[in-house]
């Protein structure tokens, strides 16, 4: 009950703070890419930040899920018993690292690596690929970009997804697996046709947990995303996320100004966005719950 009241309170506060911006720009606030905080000609549109938030989180999921699946598969099916505990604990410890540390590591280690070893080495070759070449074709060369941010996010959400997957894989009743082995299935076939179908709801739950963390992550992303209010044309372009715009501009915004209201509006949208992601996952999973 208390939680519900708190939640409602937060939503109302955000919405009241955001009201002037919504009144000023209407629905255009969500679709406009313009973000001009210069006094006297303020124009605020959240599309770049919203798009950046979604795309960086989505990329992070794309990077993290296969690796997390591999880890869980290894820990439950392949690894010798004595190795399972230490490796499992090590993965879980990744979750205990504060996000600012990921940010610093991203900025000082990963960003130069992406810049010099990935973009410089492979950038031109990848850019000349047909159809998907544009994804790698960038004029900006700073190391802090969408790709680096997604990579840092992927590492941050990896332990959540991997731990959930491992736990649920372990809960598959041995009877099912043994029956599958008995009819001659290989290890991969067992995981694909017995373990995954049995656990897919919980697996999706783990992925959603990761997505939730990725959407709202602030500090680590702010360090490495390049903070440019432009739509990214490629993976190596800098862009921005909702959380990082708020963190960067809130302290210097004047109380009651349109800028502060626009930041509130972004915060409100982030809230709604996380809510929608959760609701959508529930809705997608519902028909399968009966199985």
């Amino acid at each position, binding site marked *: 009950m208390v939680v519900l009241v708190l939640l409602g309170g937060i939503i109302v506060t955000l919405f009241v703070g955001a009201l002037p911006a919504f009144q000023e720009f209407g629905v255009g606030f969500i679709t406009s890419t313009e973000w001009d905080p210069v006094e006297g000609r303020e124009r605020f549109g959240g599309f770049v930040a919203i798009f950046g938030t979604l795309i960086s989180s989505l990329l992070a999921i794309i990077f993290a899920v296969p690796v997390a699946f591999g880890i869980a598969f290894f820990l439950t099916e392949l690894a010798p018993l004595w190795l399972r505990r230490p490796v499992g604990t090590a993965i879980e410890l990744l979750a205990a690292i504060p996000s600012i540390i990921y940010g610093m590591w991203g900025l000082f280690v990963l960003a130069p690596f992406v810049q010099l070893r990935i973009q410089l080495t492979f950038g031109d070759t990848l850019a000349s690929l047909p159809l998907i070449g544009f994804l790698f074709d960038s004029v*900006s060369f700073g*190391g802090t970009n969408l790709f680096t941010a997604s990579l840092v996010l992927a590492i941050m959400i990896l332990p959540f997804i991997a731990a959930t997957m491992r736990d649920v894989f372990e809960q598959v009743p041995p009877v099912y697996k043994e029956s599958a082995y008995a009819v001659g299935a290989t290890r991969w076939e067992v995981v694909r046709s017995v373990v995954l179908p049995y656990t897919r709801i919980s697996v999706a739950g783990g992925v959603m947990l990761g997505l939730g963390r990725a959407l709202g992550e602030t500090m680590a992303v702010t*360090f490495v995303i390049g903070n440019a209010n432009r739509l990214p044309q490629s993976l190596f372009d*800098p862009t*921005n996320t909702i959380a990082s715009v708020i963190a960067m501009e809130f302290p210097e915004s*004047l109380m009651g100004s349109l800028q502060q209201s626009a930041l509130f509006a972004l915060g409100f949208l982030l809230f709604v966005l996380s809510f929608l992601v959760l609701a959508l996952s529930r809705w997608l999973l519902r028909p399968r719950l009966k199985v």
Partner: protein
Amino acid sequence: MNRRTLLAAAAAATTLPLLPRAARAQQAQITGAGATFPRPLYERWAQAAREAIGIQLNYQSIGSGGGINQITNRTVDFGATDAPLTVEQLAERNLLQFPTVLGSIVPIVNLPGVQDSQVRLSPELLAEMFLGRVRRWNDERLVELNRDLRLPNLPVAPAYRADASGTTWGFTTYLARVSEAWRSGPGAGTSVSWPAGQGARGNEGVSNTVRNTPGAIGYVENAYAVVNRLVRVQLRNRAGTFVRAERDAFIAAAAAADWSVPNMAPDTIDLQGEKVWPITTGTYILLPTNPTAERVEASRNTMRFFDWAFREGSRAAEQLEYIPLPSEVHELVRKAWRERIRTPDGTPVWSA
């Protein structure tokens, strides 16, 4: 009062070893909040002033915007801001604004084989680079200015402050002043919508991006550039001479500004003068002109603190690479205190 505070300070200094506890207990507390840029200096001053005049300053560097908000709500004794308020904004909030020191902003670059203060830039080219229109370092307009240097064929990678800051305000005000395209494009503010380049957090983020990226150009506080030995550039000022980012050039800028304007926040960007460094910004204190009865004492102590800082703090400022103001300006500030800040019954709070 001047002499009296000096005497009091001397007395406090001599009696301190005898009565340390009593003296400490009687220390006056003042609180301020605002700009991050002058924080190291205010902290240094606070340390020295605690011994010298028995005033303990608690300064929270929460950002200029936060400082303005807090002093408008009167939750602190003074606010501090880098971007000055206009006369109307001050009147609306019943505040007096006065400058403490100047800071200078310098462009920094990362070009292989190029040393500090070697590259020469014209204001127009600087703006074009940040607009993303000069794309290569061996652009012929750059080569023209730097005949004695071998400029590499590297892409120009601008780096800027992503967090809203007074440094960005100073730098973009300068660009808007010297370039028509910048004025009608991104404009000037504590954060603007940058047409090209990477954003990074804080001075340290910008300098890190520049250091990691060959061909990068960014801008930071000079203090930061000096401490971290970053490669600065020479800029052509309004008089047409190329100036290095050095102390004399900054002092010349402080002297060239017209401090008698009503909000005491003169234009310090792109001033006229042979030796003037073109990008300097003041940092300001906001003080209520109508302190409530229980805050009169704190208001007076705030003025005592800055009065002491003006007299004794210039050396500390220079050590930290800030530019102290000319002493005529200090007099102007004291005059404003006398004339503008009143107790509820109408008498001046500052009577020295």
